[in-house]
């Protein structure tokens, strides 16, 4: 049976890792290489590495950095940030990414997702959607690391991403991000029920029970989390033990 994945998310900015609240108020949380070595030793299920300054600074992904990190990473690695073309994807795969996350460029140009899927296969395209709740209960897509409102509905964007050949959706709640107050269950459930590709829930995880809720009520296929691993004693391994106790299939 396919196992539930617990995926630490590493956000990179300038020279190191950071973690913020609501895509703001960034705190430094150490070096990327150190984190990757630790997670490698602990054999985590998968890592998400996002360069959150690339698009804002209008630059491509830092291929040399990813190359260095991937050399130490013997677990699946999803890399995002600054991806604007199919050639960026080819280069990231070449230096060691297993999957590539596209956020701003996918929102601006869904055809890019199609092009990447056609060339490299759906399985390596993760469309990352950063969503903020609207007054009417719906959700709006934000790009440029949460800085730019697109006016686009998150559910529409998710269905469109699947239609263009996306292999997975990394779904982040902007206002829950970093708050450790739990995932946005309604958002996750709405998207999970509208697409047939895996949905990775992200944003707001504060304890293992939050993971249980987003898997049960949010129907997520996998859980991503950052603050819980940076700022508390909780670990991916303990998270999986908790999930197993709750009846989920996990890998040890």
């Amino acid at each position: 049976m396919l196992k539930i994945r617990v995926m630490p998310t590493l956000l990179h900015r300038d020279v190191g890792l950071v973690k913020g609240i609501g895509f703001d108020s960034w705190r430094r949380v150490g070096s990327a290489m150190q984190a990757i070595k630790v997670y490698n030793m602990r054999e985590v299920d998968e890592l998400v590495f996002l360069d959150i300054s690339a698009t804002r600074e209008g630059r491509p992904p830092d291929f040399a950095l990813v190359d260095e990190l991937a050399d130490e990473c013997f677990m699946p690695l999803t890399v995002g940030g600054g991806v604007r073309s199919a050639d960026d994807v080819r280069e990231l795969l070449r230096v060691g990414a297993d999957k590539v996350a596209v956020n701003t460029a996918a929102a601006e140009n869904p055809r890019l997702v199609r092009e990447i899927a056609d060339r490299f296969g759906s399985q390596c395209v993760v469309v990352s959607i950063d969503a903020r709740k609207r007054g009417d209960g719906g959700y709006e897509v934000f790009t440029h690391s949460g800085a730019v409102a697109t006016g686009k509905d998150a559910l529409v964007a998710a269905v469109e991403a699947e239609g263009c050949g996306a292999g997975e959706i990394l779904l982040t709640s902007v206002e829950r991000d970093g708050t450790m107050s739990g995932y946005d269950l309604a958002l996750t459930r709405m998207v999970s029920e509208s697409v047939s590709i895996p949905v990775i829930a992200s944003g707001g995880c504060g304890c293992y029970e939050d993971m249980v809720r987003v898997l049960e009520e949010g129907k997520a296929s996998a859980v991503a989390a950052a603050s819980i691993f940076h700022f508390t004693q909780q670990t991916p391994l303990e998270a999986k033990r908790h999930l197993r106790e709750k009846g989920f299939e996990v890998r040890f």
Partner: protein
Amino acid sequence: MNRVAIVDYGMGNLDSVARAVEECGGDPVVTDRAADLETANRIILPGVGAFPEGMRNIRFRSLDRILREQVADKGIPLLGICLGMQLLASRGLEGGETEGLGFIDGEVRRLVPGGEDVRIPHVGWNEVVVEGDPPLFRGIQPGKDFYFVHSYHFCCTRREDVLARTPYCGGFVAAVGRGPVFGVQFHPEKSQRTGFRLLRNFLGL
């Protein structure tokens, strides 16, 4: 030490495979040159991507002919990984019908969801159930998890070419083997200790 040629046909996580081979004690060279393939004593065909584009790139570089010479004529062990495994088939049905390398009889079809919450692509860790006692899986406990990320699967014509299966979408072929030719649908280079054990087994064949 084993000289391992990792075939570069412009697609795939070449660096990851090379690093894993290094960690497993092999001497990797990422290459599309005939000379490197002819001097290697192990060949790995990696791959991330779509079947038609994969075959087009292989043919464009005349790698199909070189691989056939090395593997079929000289018996150099070959391991196909993910798309690299699928390309070993007679044909692929991804985006129309494309002729494959034809090393192992069968065709590559899209996974068909069997149950309620079965999602495609099949992404993540899943168990691999080995049939018989193939040397490629020596020392690996039955039912160990490997990392998968794919939407298509290899349908073998001959039952004896199936080395292992994975219970998803009604069960699909996770590993194939015939003579010196092997293929795995999962990514041993990303499957940590269990994956490294399989790579070491391949290097030691």
